[in-house]
């Protein structure tokens, strides 16, 4: 039996190898390194505090260190990712809102460009952060105004027990994709240093069937090179004072491919981005109060060129300051007042002169425990842009925990929110519209969360359900100017009503030395136009374009004999491409599989991993006319010095 099994497995591996073209390896190979066998902890942490907050911890991220943020969000959350192709612009859509309604933060500092108001998730490597915190809807008001969809916070945390931990990783993928990472953490019980380097390069010239040319061609002008580093220093003094300095640098040279209809072997379109973020934090912690003082600086340069016709440079600087005080000295009551001050300065070829904006934001959270079962939270935010006050942004939430011993919580909240126009909306030459009003959002939400972990910790389950209803008024929409196809202008045109349900279910079980985990997420979202541009406009009550009604993802992980298998499937339903809902991109599901093994050598842990993306080789487009790669492969080799811990 043993011999037969061996030969069968060998044969099937050879057959597999023969089928997989040797030149092709994975696009974004993920990798896994488990320093201890069966190190599966709670992967999803719910910390609602009256609002919906979800954390994705490093146990999930460690499997995907070579991907970018968009891949993680698509596979593990209900956030819909609008992708222009691998390595190309990827933007999030929460709860039927647009990318500009999502704020992405790194250690509490906004990464959203003040020019465009959004973030390209494809430019954020997962290797640069340790955990993800997602604040849905009104939960985001504790951080900022204007994030109607929510806030995604990328967190890095020190491990005070660490003495030395080094990780080196190299992966090879299809279409000449190479990714290298080097992470080192060293320190003492009061001082920690984290240093991370990442480098990715890809030809990204995947083959696809071009409908216009009726033949299979290779994607043109799609290569990219991305490198970056981050350094974080943490210093703790008597458990009362915590200083940290964090620094993050990224450089991205990206060729932008033509659409399938505009296939051109001579296409030349490039974007170069270079950004630097630096943040210094001081936290003082006493028994009944704490104080956070933060100052940060951001500098982003971007150059865009198209053939010889366009060559524009843009640069922005941001100076971000925050003071937040938390007081818990009153029984059952805590208060968290704070003030943020942000100064934006933009120097762009597309603006007439340098543009500046100062935003001062006063915010306070009041949390009151009404008895042992009910908690109420009130968040009030008041923004002042330059010297003009915006209307008040309030959020009120209630949480009810009926049983002491059962981890079950019901939440309900409501909020009003505003989003101020971006600097591009206001100042883009020829298009900028100084008369734009802020967008307004009203939202209500209710949810329930349940968690259970068995006494021996071998079984755990978590489930969540949230339902929301939200209205956006005076939504800013860019559209072509009448009579001039080349000129677009932003206006407060649309009114959107979004409502939906989000569910999550995850479990983890250990039996017969197997560790099996499964996480599923499903979202139902109806996001409809509620205002017509004229009596002839057909869009009232129709689903917003590119917002799927259903999204679902499921990830199954199986671990045994130091092997691990991770099978992920993501489904998005039909997405309309016309506001009258007469044209549609059909729904699809994509499967990805990761298989690997950890090998313990004397002082080093060697990990070998293979990955197959788009397992069923689906010929698909996520956005009209933007081809996506078919089946592709990856191999990752990882070497780790197991952490020396005190």
């Amino acid at each position, binding site marked *: 039996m043993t011999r037969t099994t061996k030969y069968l497995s060998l044969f099937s591996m050879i057959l597999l190898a023969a089928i997989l073209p040797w030149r092709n390896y994975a696009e974004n190979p993920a990798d896994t390194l488990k320093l201890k066998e069966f190190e599966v902890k709670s992967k999803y942490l719910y910390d609602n505090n009256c609002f919906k907050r979800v954390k994705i911890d490093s146990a999930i991220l460690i499997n995907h260190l070579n991907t970018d943020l968009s891949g993680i969000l698509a596979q593990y959350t209900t956030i819909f990712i609008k992708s222009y192709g691998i390595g190309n612009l990827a933007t999030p859509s929460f709860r039927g809102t647009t990318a500009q309604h999502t704020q992405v933060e790194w250690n509490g500092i906004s990464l959203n460009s003040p020019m465009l108001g959004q973030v390209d998730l494809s430019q954020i490597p997962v290797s640069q952060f340790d955990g993800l915190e997602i604040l849905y809807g009104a939960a985001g008001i504790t951080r900022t105004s204007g994030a109607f969809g929510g806030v995604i916070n990328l967190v890095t945390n020190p491990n005070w027990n660490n003495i030395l931990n080094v990780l080196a990783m190299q992966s090879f993928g299809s279409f000449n994709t190479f990714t290298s990472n080097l992470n080192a953490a060293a320190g003492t019980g009061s001082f920690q240093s984290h240093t991370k380097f990442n480098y990715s390069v890809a030809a990204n010239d995947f083959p696809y069937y071009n409908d216009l040319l009726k033949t299979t061609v290779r994607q043109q002008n799609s290569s990219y090179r991305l490198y970056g580093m981050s350094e974080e220093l943490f210093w703790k003094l008597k458990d009362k004072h915590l200083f940290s300095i964090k620094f993050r640098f990224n450089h991205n040279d990206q060729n932008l491919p033509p659409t399938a209809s*505009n296939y051109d072997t001579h296409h030349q379109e490039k974007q170069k981005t270079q950004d630097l973020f630096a943040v210094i934090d001081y936290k003082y912690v006493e028994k009944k109060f704490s104080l956070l003082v933060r100052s940060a600086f951001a500098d982003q340069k971007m150059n865009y060129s198209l053939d010889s016709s366009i060559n524009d440079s843009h640069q922005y600087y941001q100076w971000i300051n925050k003071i937040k005080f938390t007081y818990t000295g009153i029984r059952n009551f805590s208060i968290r007042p704070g003030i943020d001050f942000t100064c934006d300065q933009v120097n762009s070829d597309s603006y007439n002169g340098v543009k500046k904006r100062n935003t001062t934001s006063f915010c306070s959270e009041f949390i009151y425990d009404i008895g042992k079962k009910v908690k109420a939270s009130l968040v009030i935010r008041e923004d002042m842009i330059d010297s003009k006050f915006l209307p008040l942004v309030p959020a009120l939430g209630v949480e009810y925990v009926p049983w002491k011993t059962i981890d079950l919580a019901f939440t309900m909240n409501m909020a009003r929110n505003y989003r101020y126009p971006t600097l591009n909306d206001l100042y883009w030459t*020829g298009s900028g519209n100084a008369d734009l009003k802020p967008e307004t959002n009203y939202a209500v939400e209710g949810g329930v969360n349940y968690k259970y972990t068995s006494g021996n910790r071998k079984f755990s389950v978590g489930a969540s359900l949230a339902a929301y209803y939200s209205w956006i008024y005076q939504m800013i929409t860019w559209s072509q*100017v009448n009579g001039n196809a080349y000129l677009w202008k932003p206006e407060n045109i649309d009114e959107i009503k979004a409502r939906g349900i989000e569910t999550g279910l995850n479990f983890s079980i250990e039996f017969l030395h197997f560790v099996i985990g499964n996480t599923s997420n499903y979202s139902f979202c109806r996001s409809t136009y509620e205002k017509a541009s004229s009596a002839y406009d057909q869009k009232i009550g129709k689903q917003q374009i590119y917002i799927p009604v259903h999204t679902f993802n499921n990830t199954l992980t199986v671990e045994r004999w130091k092997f691990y298998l991770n099978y992920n499937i993501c489904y998005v339903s039909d997405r309309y491409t016309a506001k009258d809902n007469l044209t549609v991109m059909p729904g699809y599901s994509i499967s990805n599989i990761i298989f690997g093994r950890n090998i313990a050598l004397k002082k080093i842990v060697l990990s070998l991993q293979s990955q197959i993306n788009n397992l069923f080789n689906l010929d698909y487009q996520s956005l009209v006319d933007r081809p996506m790669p078919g089946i592709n492969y990856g191999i990752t080799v990882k070497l780790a010095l197991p952490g020396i811990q005190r």
Partner: protein
Amino acid sequence: MKEKYINSYKFLLFFSLLTLAALTHSCSKTPIREHKVDPPDTTHITSYANGIFVVNEGNYNWGNASVTFIDNKSNALIQDIFKKSNDRSLGDVAESMKIADNLGYLVVNNSNRIEVVSLSDFKSVTTITGLNSPRYLEIVDSTKAYVTNLQKDISIIDLHTNTVSGTIKTNGWTENLIKYDKYMLVTSIGTFSDPSSKRRAQIFVIDTQLDAIVDSIQTGKEPIGIVIDKKQKVWVLCSGGYDNYEAPSLIRINPELRLVEKIFTFSNPAEVPSRLCINPTADTLYFLKNGVCQMPVAAAVLPVQPMIASEGRLLYGLAVHPATGHIYVSDAKDYVQNGTVYQYNTSGSLLKQYTAGRIPGSFCFTRNSSK
């Protein structure tokens, strides 16, 4: 220990078989592509030689340009005839269409090509490439045509081979063009990437026998439309610049003397006129500005009110039927849904309306079209 390895092989086998199963399952799915929600139009037409083509630009970079056909004989309305006849999409941003002999020339701007189709069945005859972001095509004679481009030059098309046979260097964006005597008058906007202040707006006078620019006439910023009236005067509509650099203007040029004779300046720079057309008797101008405006060539002032009010519609394309003088105007709505084409008679009464494709921008009438 040995048992553990055996189990490892089992697991490996399981995984390999799973992957093999997945691979053999592949390649059988229908490609995920944009399509219409309604079932395909099955209206059968034997020929496209008698009717009106509505050229729907489609959204920039979405590759959803199309052509809607209004058949004169059967009164049928057929959507997306290019795709129907050729089983592929037309491309990205179809700017205009022109007919020469029994061939249709569809200028697809962002796909940087001209699709040449037979008018009998709308099947592709050939595709002209080697252009520089083409805009409009005008026939010079039975042997050649000129195509304006957003960049660099004007392309000369050999109508026998349907290839680019040469270029006339312009160093910038040329837009509309019209034949006058042995000359082609071409509106030139300037360098595409420059702001209006730096752009040099002019009319190029091209000697079609020499294929060379022999003269130029300065105009207001962004000359986008050009027509000739019954007295052989040339009318040019200037938008004033995309950044509202100056007030829009309508100018009259004496092509013989190559002199600007008259300038009508629009009072509100923010209200940009577009789509200059002329009626079959060449005595009345039409253009879009808050609706469809009508202006006799002999008028002393610009029209105050539009003859057809926009009534909240986003009027985008305009054409006057060369035989009937009927006015065809399109509503692009909010650019992200199907547009509508309205047909008015010469006095501005609505006759009919037709559903079109995405962003109907221009029209092309067959020679015997008399609808």
